[in-house]
């Protein structure tokens, strides 16, 4: 690992000040540290957010479930509030990585990284979330901008994710058995005005599956569309065609979880 200096600020303001030059924020570290160990990433300054107070709270605010950016996957999975409010979100968190990863990985780290096969971005997009940061807010629809790319500016820190509480939400993924990332993952959220569907794992970035949204908003019993895109991921794990097939199967499974 290329040497760096670790800053451990104890306030959001100090964390913003510590971010200077070639720097990165450290949340759970379970993507960043492996990337740095393998030489894919190097920084001069690493700013650890673990000591910034208040970033791991989970609370209800009106029609929103607010999950602090430093909330660990294990904490979201076990949270009575998440389980009572959006149980499908707790189940999603319980399916990320493995137990040791879930004790360290955070929601803020996951969405800031925006891995094209990560689970949380699909939930954030389907649940019409607002991403609260040190600089303001971003709508989920504008936040995810491509492979490992987001609307975050340099030195901008995610502080919380405000999920809109739906009638029902479910996430289904076909996971790679070694990495546990999604080969295809589909999140479905039912709102009063219609259905939102987000897909991860199959393309360069998470996206909304508008054909599925239109069909399912008209009727939950609609015939499921076939995923047609020209940017489907094909790699050693699965062809684009197979991923598209899996997406349709995962859509059917997620849909079963939001009926009734």
């Amino acid at each position: 690992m290329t040497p760096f200096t670790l800053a451990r600020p104890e306030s959001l303001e100090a964390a913003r000040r510590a971010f200077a030059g070639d720097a990165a924020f450290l949340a759970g570290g379970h993507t960043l540290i492996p990337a740095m160990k393998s030489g894919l990433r190097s920084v001069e300054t690493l700013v650890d957010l673990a000591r910034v107070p208040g970033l791991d709270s989970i609370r209800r605010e009106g029609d929103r479930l607010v999950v602090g950016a430093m909330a660990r996957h294990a904490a979201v999975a076990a949270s009575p509030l998440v389980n009572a409010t959006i149980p499908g979100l707790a189940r999603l968190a319980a399916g990320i990585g493995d137990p040791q990863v879930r004790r360290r990985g955070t929601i803020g780290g996951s969405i800031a990284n925006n891995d094209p096969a990560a689970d949380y971005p699909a939930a954030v997009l389907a649940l019409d979330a607002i991403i609260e940061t040190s600089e303001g807010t971003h709508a989920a629809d504008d936040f995810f901008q491509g492979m490992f790319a987001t609307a975050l500016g340099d030195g901008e820190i995610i502080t919380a994710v405000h999920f809109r509480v739906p009638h029902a939400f479910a996430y289904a993924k076909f996971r790679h058995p070694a990495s546990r990332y999604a080969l295809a993952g589909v999140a479905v959220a039912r709102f009063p005005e219609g259905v939102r569907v987000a897909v991860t794992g199959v393309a360069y970035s998470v996206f909304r599956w508008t054909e599925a949204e239109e069909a399912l908003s008209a009727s939950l019993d609609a015939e499921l569309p076939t995923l047609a895109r020209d940017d489907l991921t094909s790699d050693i794990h699965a062809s684009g065609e197979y991923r598209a097939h899996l997406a349709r199967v995962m859509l059917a499974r997620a849909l079963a979880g939001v009926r009734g």
Partner: protein
Amino acid sequence: MRIRVNGEDREANAPDHRLLVDWLREDLELTGTHVGCTTSQCGACNVMVDGEVVKACTTLLASCAGSEVVTIEGLGTPEALHPMQAAFRAAHGLQCGFCTPGMVMAGIAIARAHGPDVSEATIRHELEGNLCRCTGYQNIVAAIRQGARAMAEAGLLEEPA
């Protein structure tokens, strides 16, 4: 920077990019914690940090300042094994032994989270972050079931070991 390791305060003077596992093995010579994949997959490097079982190969030493770390060496002694260690021996829950320190740590976390009557299915699900290349899972699962019961009998499930 001070870190408590196996009940003893240790002073750490290491660059910020030092990993917890390298410090434990190379500086403290606590080589019971193993380095397998170094990619956060295999769990051979599992240790407890402030009571939580995590992967020491993916933990910065500097992030552990002021923390309490327990490694396999801190669980028991050859004369008085921790109940989970004793269960691994009794159930023959190891073959080559390389993954065993991480498996024992994971087993303790499973027992604490799920209690003495933890099901086989739950154990298998919770072992997703631990790889055994001897494919000895059958006996590892049996060992954790025994170990969880033994920990309860020893009164170890009410408080951190």
